[in-house]
C-alpha cells in the first residue's frame, strides 16, 4: 500500500568559520575603455561565485555586469580568498569585492567631481552614466570619465579585504560569537511510502531560505535544488558500506546517488532578511540548501507510516523491518 505523509524541517547555519578569523581579499581595476578586472582569491567550484563577485563589483562601481571580468583563484595574481566552504564566499569575498570596488570608485568620483566642478558627494555613477545629482545638464558617459582620469594621470584601482566579526570561543563553556551572521531555512516535504517494497518517494519539497539578499536569484534557486538532491540521498538512499576499514562500494554502480530522473518537484522560496554586515545584505546558501531536507523527510515518513526513524539512511530494508516489527 502507498501511504503519503508530510513533514517539516528547520535549520540555522553560521556563515564562515567557527570562531576563527577567515578573511578574504580582492583587487579591482577600471581600465581606460571602461572595462573592469576583478582579481579574487575565491574558487568558483561551479556554484557561481565569480558571477556573484562580478555582480557585486558592477553594482558598487555603477557599471554594467558584462563590463566586469573576474580572474579567480590563481595564487600568482589573486590575493588570498580562503576556502570555498562554510557558505562563506558570497558574504566574505563578496564584502572584499565591495570594499575594493568602493576604493576604485572613490578615484572615479574624485575625478568626476573635479571635471564637473562640483563636490564629490554630488556625483553619482550608475548604469555606466556619470552625472550630478539635481543637475541634469552635468553628465558624461563612462568613456569620457576614463579620458578625464587619463588626462590627470589617475588609475582607478582598489583593494579590499574582509574578515567577519567573530570572537574565539571560551575553552571552558564555548561562549562567544562564533559567526557574524546566520542563514535560516524551513523545508516542508511530501513523501509517499510503499509499505510493500519499503520504497520512499519524495514527491514535493517546499524550501524557504533566508539568504539576507539574493545576489543572483536563479543561482540561489539552483543551490536550493542541488541541496535537495543531496538531502534526499542523505536521508533515504546513499549507503556507504564499510568493512574492516575498507569501503566496499567505491563507485557509482554500488553507491547510488539521485539522478535528474529521481528529483521531486521543488518550490524554492527566497526570503530576504538582510544582514547589516553583508554585501548588500547577503549571507549564504550553499550548505543551508541541504540541511533541512533529511529531517523533513524523516518527519514525513513518521506522518506516513507512524515509525520515527532516528538513523539515516532509511533504506527500503529498514522500512520493511520497522513495519514488520510494528505489526508484531
Amino acid at each position: 500500500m502507498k501511504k503519503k505523509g508530510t513533514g517539516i524541517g528547520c535549520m540555522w547555519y553560521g556563515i564562515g568559520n567557527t570562531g576563527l578569523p577567515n578573511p578574504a581579499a580582492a583587487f579591482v581595476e577600471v581600465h581606460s575603455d571602461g572595462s573592469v578586472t576583478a582579481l579574487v582569491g575565491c574558487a568558483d567550484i561551479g556554484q557561481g561565485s565569480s558571477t556573484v563577485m562580478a555582480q557585486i563589483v558592477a553594482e558598487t562601481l555603477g557599471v554594467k555586469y558584462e563590463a566586469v571580468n573576474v580572474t579567480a583563484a590563481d595564487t600568482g595574481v589573486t590575493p588570498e580568498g580562503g576556502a570555498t566552504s562554510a557558505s562563506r564566499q558570497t558574504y566574505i569575498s563578496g564584502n572584499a569585492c565591495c570594499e575594493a570596488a568602493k576604493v576604485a570608485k572613490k578615484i572615479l568620483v574624485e575625478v568626476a567631481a573635479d571635471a564637473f566642478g562640483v563636490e564629490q558627494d554630488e556625483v553619482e555613477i550608475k548604469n555606466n552614466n556619470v552625472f550630478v545629482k539635481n543637475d541634469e545638464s552635468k553628465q558624461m558617459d563612462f568613456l569620457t570619465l576614463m579620458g578625464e582620469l587619463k588626462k590627470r594621470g589617475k588609475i582607478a584601482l582598489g583593494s579590499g579585504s574582509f574578515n567577519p566579526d567573530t570572537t574565539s570561543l571560551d575553552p571552558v563553556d564555548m561562549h562567544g560569537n562564533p559567526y557574524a551572521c546566520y542563514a535560516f531555512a524551513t523545508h516542508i516535504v511530501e513523501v509517499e511510502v510503499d509499505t510493500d517494497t519499503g520504497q520512499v518517494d519524495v514527491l514535493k519539497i517546499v524550501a524557504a531560505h533566508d539568504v539576507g539578499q539574493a545576489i543572483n536569484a536563479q543561482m540561489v534557486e539552483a543551490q536550493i535544488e542541488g541541496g535537495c538532491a543531496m538531502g534526499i540521498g542523505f536521508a533515504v538512499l546513499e549507503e556507504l558500506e564499510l568493512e574492516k576499514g575498507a569501503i566496499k562500494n567505491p563507485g557509482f554502480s554500488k553507491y547510488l546517488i539521485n539522478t535528474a530522473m529521481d528529483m521531486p518537484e521543488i518550490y524554492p522560496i527566497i526570503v530576504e532578511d538582510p544582514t547589516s554586515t553583508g554585501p548588500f545584505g547577503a549571507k549564504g546558501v550553499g550548505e543551508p540548501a541541504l540541511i533541512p531536507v533529511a529531517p523533513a523527510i524523516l518527519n514525513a515518513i513518521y506522518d506516513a507510516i507512524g515509525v520515527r526513524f532516528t538513523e539515516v539512511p532509511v533504506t527500503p530494508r529498514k522500512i520493511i523491518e520497522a513495519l514488520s516489527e510494528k505489526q508484531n
Partner: protein
Amino acid sequence: MGNFNIIGKSVEKKDSLSKVLGTAQFAADIEFENMLYGAVKRSEVPSAILKNVDVSKAKALPGVVSVLTYKDITGGNRIGIIIKDEPVLVDDNIRRIGDALAIVAAETKEIAEEALKLIEVEYEELEPILSIEDALKEESRKVHGKTNVLQEKHLIKGDVDEAFKECDIIVENTYKTNYVAHMFIEPEAGVAKYENGIMSVWCSTQNPHFDRGEVARTLNMPQNKVRVIQAVTGGGFGGKLDISVQCHIALLSYYTGRPVKIVTNREDSMKVSSKRHPIEMKVKTGAKKDGTILAYEAKLTSDTGAYASYGPAVVARAMTHISGPYRIPNVRIDATFVYTNNPMAGAYRGFGVPQAAIAHEGQMDALAEKIGMSPIEIRLKNALRVGDCTPTNQKLNDSIGIVETIEKAVEKSKEVIFNEGEVK
C-alpha cells in the same frame, strides 16, 4: 529591498557558455608538451608499520621516468587543513586503506599504472582500530601521538540539570548517521610544471591558497615560488578542501623537470577523499506544557578516521548548531571525536550540521506530539528572534529570518502540499 540595477538579477553565469560548449578546461583537459603521467601506490591494509618500499623493479620498467618515496621529500612530510597529521608519502605507519606509499611518473598512463604493480611494499600488519569504543580503551594503540581523542569539548549555558526538573515533558532519543561520499562528478586531478624556478600547479580544488602553502612546505620552497591555479572544477562539496594530487604532482615535476599530470580514478577518489562524519547523538529535550523549551542536552560521538582533516571544525559547528534555530535558556553539549584506522572524515556540505539537524528536528516533532501541539506551532513558539541569545550566549542583532521561512513555507505548502484546511 534596495533599488538595485544588478544585485538580485538572474544575470547569465560567467561560466555557462564554456560549460555548455564544452570548451571549459578541467584539470584533466590540460595538456603540455613532454608531459608525464603520474600514479600513486596506495596501502591496501588499514594499519601497519611500514618496513620498506622497494622501487627498483618499477624504476627499471621502460617508460618509467621517476619513482619517489618519502625519502625523496625535500621539505616537510605532514599536511592537513587544521592539524598537520597526514603524510604526503607514508614514512612510519600506514593508518588507513588508501595511504600514499610511493608515486610514479611515466611516459604514459598505462606504464605508470603498470609500474605500481612492480613496487614492493614490506610492512608489518597491526590490528586496526575500527570503532570508537576500541579507540577510547586506555590500552589501545594510538593512531597518532599519545591519545586517540581528536577533540573532547563542552558547551554549557545555564543549568540543564536544574531546568529539566522544571520541565513537564522530556523527550530522549539517540540519532545516528552514516558515512556519506561527496560523489563530485569530476574526480581529483591536476598538472604540475616546474619552470624557471617556479612551481605551477593547475588543479581541481576549493582552496588554491591553502594548496600553495602545502606544496611550498613539501618542496621547501617559498610561497611566492609556488603558483596554484584552480582549474575549472567539477564540484567539491567539501571533498576538494583536502590535498589530493597537488603535492604528488609537484614532487614528480620537481624531480623530472617535466610537466606531470595525475587524474584520480573514481575508486581511489572515493577511498581517499574525506567522508561526512558518522555521528551518534544522544539528545534530551525538555519543555513546559505550553511548548516552551527550557533545556536541551546532547552528547555527540564520532569517528574522524585516520586523519583530522576538517574534523575539529565539524566538532565545533555540530556543537554550536545542534540545539537548532530555537531560543533555549539551558543547554549542555558534550562532544568526543576520535581517531581510528577507518576512512578519513572531513568537510561535507554542512560541517556536522546536516547530522545535527536530524537530531534537533526529530526532537521538535517528538516533543510536539507528546505535548499535543502541531510541529509548526511548536517551532514558531520557540524560533529565534532578534534580541535572543544562542547557546554560546551570542546576542542576535539582525537578519533572523527563521520565522519568516516557516510562514512562507507553510503558505506555499497550503497551495501545493497540504489538503484543504489541513495544516500539519
